[in-house]
C-alpha cells in the first residue's frame, strides 16, 4: 500500500502506524499468554508470577486497540519516509546487522575495523589512507582505553589469538 503526495513517494505513514499498533498488540498477547502459563491467580504465598504481567499485557492490548482505531481514523496522506531516505537508513542498518552478527566469530576488533572502513569508503567516499587510519586507529584506541586502562574485556576472535593479546 503506497500513496503519493507531491513528488515524494514512499510507504504511507498510516500503514506503518497501523503495523506498529498491530505489532505492539501482538506483543501484548504474547505477554498475556506467557503470564497465563506462569499462573495469574493467587497461590499459597500470594499473587503468582504471572499476576502482574497479565494486567500489563491486557493494558498493552487495550492501548494498542485504541491506537489502531486512531490510526485508521485519521489518515493525513503523509508518507512515512520517501524511498531515498529509507535506502539511506537501510545502507546503515544492513551493514550494522552484518557487523553485529559477525562479532561472535571474528571478535569485536576485526569486525569494527571492517565496518568502519566500509562505512567511510562506500558511504563517505574517503581516500583509502584516511579510511585505513581511522578504521585501524579506533580499535587500537579502544583496546588501550577499555582493556588496558579500565580492564573491561571485549570479544576477541582468531586474529587477536594469533597476535597473542
Amino acid at each position: 500500500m503506497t500513496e503519493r503526495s507531491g513528488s515524494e513517494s514512499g510507504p504511507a505513514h498510516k500503514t506503518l502506524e497501523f503495523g506498529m499498533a498491530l505489532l505492539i498488540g501482538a506483543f501484548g498477547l504474547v505477554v498475556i499468554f506467557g503470564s497465563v502459563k506462569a499462573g495469574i491467580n493467587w497461590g499459597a504465598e500470594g499473587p503468582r508470577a504471572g499476576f502482574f504481567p497479565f494486567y500489563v499485557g491486557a493494558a498493552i492490548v487495550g492501548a494498542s486497540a485504541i491506537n489502531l482505531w486512531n490510526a485508521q481514523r485519521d489518515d493525513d496522506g503523509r508518507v512515512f519516509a520517501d524511498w531515498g531516505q529509507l535506502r539511506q537508513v537501510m545502507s546503515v542498518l544492513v551493514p550494522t546487522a552484518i557487523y553485529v552478527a559477525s562479532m561472535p566469530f571474528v571478535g569485536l576488533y576485526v569486525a569494527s575495523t571492517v565496518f568502519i572502513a566500509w562505512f567511510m569508503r562506500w558511504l563517505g567516499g574517503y581516500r583509502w589512507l584516511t579510511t585505513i587510519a581511522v578504521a585501524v586507529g579506533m580499535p587500537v584506541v579502544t583496546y588501550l582505553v577499555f582493556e588496558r586502562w579500565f580492564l573491561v574485556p571485549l570479544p576477541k576472535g582468531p586474529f587477536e589469538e594469533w597476535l597473542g593479546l
Partner: protein
Amino acid sequence: MEELANLFHGFAVALQPYNIMLMIVGITLGVIIGVLPGLGGANGVAILLPLTFSMPPTSAIIMLSCIYWGALFGGAITSILFNIPGEPWSVATTFDGYPMAQQGKPGEALTAAFTSSFVGALFAVIMITLVAPLVAGFALRFGPAEKFAVYFLAFCSFVGLSKEPPFKTIAAMMMGFALAAVGLDSITGQLRLTFGVTELLNGFDFLIAVIGLFGIGEILLTMEEGLAFRGGNASINLRVVLQTWRELPAYWMTSLRSCLIGCWMGVTPAGATPASFMSYGIAKRLSRRGNNFGKGEIEGVIAPETAAHAAGTAALLPMLSLGVPGSPTAAVLLGGLLIWGLQPGPMLFVEQKEFVWGLIASMYLGNLAGLIVVLTCVPIFAAILRVPFSIIAPLILVLCAIGAYSVHNSTFDVMLMLVFGVLGYLLKKCNYPLAPLVLAIVLGDKAEEAFRQSLLGSQGSLGVFFSNGLVSTIMALGLVALFWSAIQDGYSRLRTSMA
C-alpha cells in the same frame, strides 16, 4: 545543621584530586556527547557505565553525573551555531539562539546559554540540598503501598504531561513493564515469559534497551536526513562574555520563572524537553519584547536553557530520595547504583552519607567546572562538529556495540541492542515516547514488588491504596496527573461554552 556538615564532608570527597580529574573527564566527554548527533545523555552514560564497574561508587557517580551535566551544556552549542539541536531539550534554544548567531552574535548567545544553564543547575542543586534529605526522611516511613503510589504517580504524570498521544504513552510504558517482567520472578523465584530461551533467564537489561533505543535509533533517524552537513565557526572572547554577563541580570524574572518551571518539571518525570518548551512559551507570552521572540532575542535563549538545565538537575532529586528517576538519564544513573551494589531510595541518606553528599557536592563543582570548560573550549567542540557524519556514525555505532557488550560480556546483548535500535527508530517515527518505556524497564520489578507486597498485606483488596491519608493523597495526585489532559480539555470546553 547536620546537613551543612554533611555537605562540607561531601565537598571534601568531591575535591579529592582523583575525583576532580574524573569530573573534568566527565564534563569533556559529556559536552562531546551533547554535541554529537546520535549520542545523547542517556545512552552516552549507558555506554560509559561499564567503565565504572571497577571504580568506587562515589567516583563513578561523580564521573557519570558530570557526563550528564556536560551533555546538558553541549546541546546548546549545536543549537546556536548550526541550528541543529544536539539534544531534544535544546530544540527550543534554536528558536532564538540560531538567529542570534546569524546576526553575528554567536558569542553572546552561547554565553547567555551557558550562564543560564549554570544558573538553572545551581538553583536545582540548592533545592536538592535543602529538600532531598527532608523527602528522604519522610519516605523512610513509606510502606509498600506508599511506594507503589509514588511509582503510580510517576508513571501517571508521563501519560498526562507528555505531548505524545496518551494511549501511545501507555502502550510504550506497558511494553517496558512487560520487558522488565521477563525472567526470574523476584518473589516466587519462578521463571516467566522466557518461552524456553536461556538468554532471557535474567530478563532484559535496561542498559541494552537505552543504548539501542536512543543510540542506534537516533543514528537511523539522522541517516534519513543524509550525510550532508554545513559547518560554522565560533569563538568566544572574554570581552563578549563580560559584556553579556552585564546584560543578564536584567532578565532575572525570566531566569527565576524558568528555574521554577524546570525544577517542577524535573521532579515530576516530565523531563527537560517539555520544561524548555514550556519555559520558552511562557517567556514569550509574558515578555514585553515577546513579538521579537524567534528573531534573535536573548531572553529566548535564557528561558529554555535555564529550564532545561534546572529540570535535568532536579531529575536527580526523586532518584536520590525516592529511588524514582525523573528522566531517562537519571534512570541510567539509578541502574548504575544497583550495579555498584547500592540500594537507591531513602535509605541512601542514612547508610551511604558519603556517596549522597559527595554526589551533591560534585553537582555544585561539576556545573562550575562545566561552565568554565564550555566557555573556554567552544571552538574545539565546534570543530568536532565539522567532522563529517560518515566518520562519526560508524564510530558511534562501534561504541554502542562495545557498551552493549560490556554490560554482561555477551554478544547476544549486542544483537538485542540492534533489535531495540530498529524498534526505537520505528517507535520514534510513529510518535511513541521512549522515556516511559525505559523508565518502566528500570522500575518495573520494584513497582511490581511494591504492588504485590501491598496486596499481600491486604489479602488482595485494592482498598490498601486508599487506606490512609498519605497513600490516598499520592494516588489521587496520580489519578489527576493521569487524566490531566482530559481535565484541561474539559475545562477549556466549559469556558468556551460559558462565554
